[in-house]
């Protein structure tokens, strides 16, 4: 008895006892769950198998990036869904970043009116549920935009209607390789020039207008290539045929609503992150930079932004991740993303809830774990070393 009391009073052995106890509890709980699943499955006559992935899916997907028809397998449908998730995530992230950074900077400007407008924009968008915003935008596109026959046209080449957005599609013809070649040359030149000018500045202090020269090179060189090879790009302009447009790039109302809602919603959060990041830089840093004679634009570029970047990037990445996870709400408006294909129709058709949900969760989990691994790596790299 006294031996047991002794074990309990010793910190080391007490910790081991506690851990074994916790481990036993968790192990018992998990085996209880597994036991329940197996007995439930037995009584229902079900088994666990992923064979359903290779049988034909039998349903249509209206938006796809790789070839797909309803005779393809469930696996291919899931990949189409995953790519659709990726598509809306990328579009949304681009929109959110542009809008968010602009709003964040406007909120820091000295203009009273613009600051107030930006403030209320942020408060309104981030305090309304994202699902509601998706449905609202979708409703506006479906119910308030005109029919294709009376579509709003932008210069007679792009059209807005309740069937979605149509923009001209570039058709690449023979000779496009030259344009590609010139682009590669331009980018290589820009990279080398950047390295060269940086070295030159470190050695001698001479500064070149790197940004402008590189910008010009990247624009002008491919344009020259385009004209030399005889203008190998033509535009396929959408035309009205019957009840809808044909040709061009089509952005379905669902994709448009989802991109817009996710972009605007996330932009509100990003603007706060950008603002907080810039405000977090000590005032003394700016004053010191100004007192050694830097122009305000240089103070921003050389002193404030490099420090703010360290604060901004981790929460920014997690906002991107949130946007990607929020894109799963696509199911509410019928956009065929991963959750709507594999976790929606495939689930209903095959009746394999367990397998499909495990797959969907595993995919999202691996995306977010790899992004947080990247974030940890970045945090360690930019961490202030000191004290």
């Amino acid at each position: 008895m006294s031996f047991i009391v002794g074990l309990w009073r010793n910190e080391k052995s007490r910790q081991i006892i506690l851990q074994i106890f916790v481990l036993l509890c968790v192990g018992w709980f998990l085996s209880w769950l597994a036991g329940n699943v197996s007995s439930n499955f037995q009584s229902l006559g079900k088994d666990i198998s992923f064979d359903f992935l290779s049988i034909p899916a039998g349903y249509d997907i209206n938006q796809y990036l790789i070839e797909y028809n309803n005779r393809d397998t469930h696996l291919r449908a899931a990949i189409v869904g995953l790519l659709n998730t990726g598509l809306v995530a990328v579009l949304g992230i681009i929109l959110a970043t542009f809008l968010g950074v602009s709003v964040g900077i406007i909120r820091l400007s000295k203009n009273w009116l613009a600051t107030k407008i930006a403030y209320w924009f942020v408060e309104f968008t981030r305090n309304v549920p994202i699902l509601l915003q998706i449905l609202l935008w979708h409703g506006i596109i479906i119910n308030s935009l005109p029919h294709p026959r009376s579509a709003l046209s932008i210069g007679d080449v792009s059209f807005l209607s309740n069937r979605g957005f149509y923009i001209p599609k570039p058709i690449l013809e023979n000779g496009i390789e030259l344009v590609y070649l010139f682009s590669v040359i331009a980018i290589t030149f820009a990279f080398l020039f950047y390295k060269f000018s940086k070295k030159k500045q470190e050695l001698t202090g001479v500064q070149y207008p790197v940004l402008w020269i590189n910008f010009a090179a990247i624009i002008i060189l491919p344009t020259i290539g385009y004209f030399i090879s005889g203008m190998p790009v033509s535009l396929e302009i959408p035309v009205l045929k019957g009840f809808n447009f044909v040709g061009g790039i089509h952005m379905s109302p669902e994709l448009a609503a989802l991109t817009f809602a996710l972009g605007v919603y996330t932009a509100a959060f990003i603007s706060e992150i950008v603002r907080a990041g810039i405000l977090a830089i000590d005032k003394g840093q700016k004053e010191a930079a100004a007192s050694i004679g830097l122009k305000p634009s240089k103070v921003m570029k050389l002193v404030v932004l490099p420090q703010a970047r360290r604060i901004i990037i981790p929460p920014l990445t997690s906002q991107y991740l949130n946007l990607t996870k929020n894109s799963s709400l696509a199911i509410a408006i019928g956009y065929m993303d991963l959750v709507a294909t594999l976790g929606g129709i495939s689930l209903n058709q095959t009746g394999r809830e367990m397998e499909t949900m495990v797959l969907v969760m595993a995919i999202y989990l691996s995306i977010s774990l790899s992004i947080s691994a990247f974030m940890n790596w970045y945090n360690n790299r930019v961490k202030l070393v000191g004290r």
Partner: protein
Amino acid sequence: MIKDLYKPGSYPNLAPPKGTVGFYGWTKSNLFSSLSNSLLTIFSFILLYFLIDGIIGWFFLDAVFDADSKIECRKIDSGACWAVITRRIGQFIYGFYPDAERWRIDIVFIGLFFASAPLLYPDLPIRRWLLWFSGFYPFIAFILINGGLFGLVSIEINLFGGFMLTMIIGVSGIVCSLPLGIMLALGRQSKLTVVRSISVCFIEFMRGVPLITLLFVASSMLNYFMPPGTNFSILVRVIIMFTFFAAAYIAEVIRGGIQAIPKGQYEAAEALGMTYWQTTRFITLPQAMKISIPGIVNTFIGLYKDTTLVIVIGLLDPLGIGRAAVSDTKWNGLSTETYLFVALFFFVSCFAMSRYSLWLENKLNTDHR
């Protein structure tokens, strides 16, 4: 000599230079301080003009507040057709709860006000008495909403809906997720490897998957994990999932707070001979919680907004009621009006929550700056 020259009162007090104060000065420094600033101001004015012009006309002047259908609305005027809201306001608030029993929900709403007041405002005069009420409130609310006891008619859960459902899920999620979140945060910081790894796995899993997949699990798969024959209500399952989900996020927020506490605090506690639980109770949590208030409230706001996700598993919260109204042939296509109304409800509640968190943060701020 100079001293005499500038003696106070020897010169009249001059007004500040012209154009630096008053309306003109304010306008100049805040709206037109530079060329780009002036352009921004003009652009904002144009934007504001179109917004206000459109909003006032569509929202109020041309709007119809009572009609029998959308067609009738359009006959009366061209603006918003708020009739879809006014005709269904009962559903938006109570869902399909029977008309005769709605007074019970009203009492629950009023009770919520009195139960939350002492928790939210520490300086309330009769706080100690109200705290007793707060303790009993969940049971009272449960009996009132669910019925079946004390002669109250029992109400089916599938009749719940509207704002009432949002409040039920939101408040229960918030109340249950805070303790669980604190436990997970402590677990993640624990010295015991087993406890730490279990907490990490739970937190990372919950944060890694979209909430919607967890709700699918709750609605279609949770029964597989229970002993055969168990059947508990979908509402409870949903609340459990919301609690787990929010707790994982709260745990991370509180972990940030715990890590921000200087190491000297623990060393001092150890020097005083405090045990782990004493240190946690008197040193770690009071400081960590204070730091994490903004993050915790943000998580609560997120949870509250996420309650709308229950529409994908067929529960009818205000958004679900709105979606049903929009697809009704009588009101078909009035999505903007309906969703804006629901959006207003969420905006008011979430904005109030974030203002409260700002107030509390200032109140608890003990920095001497």
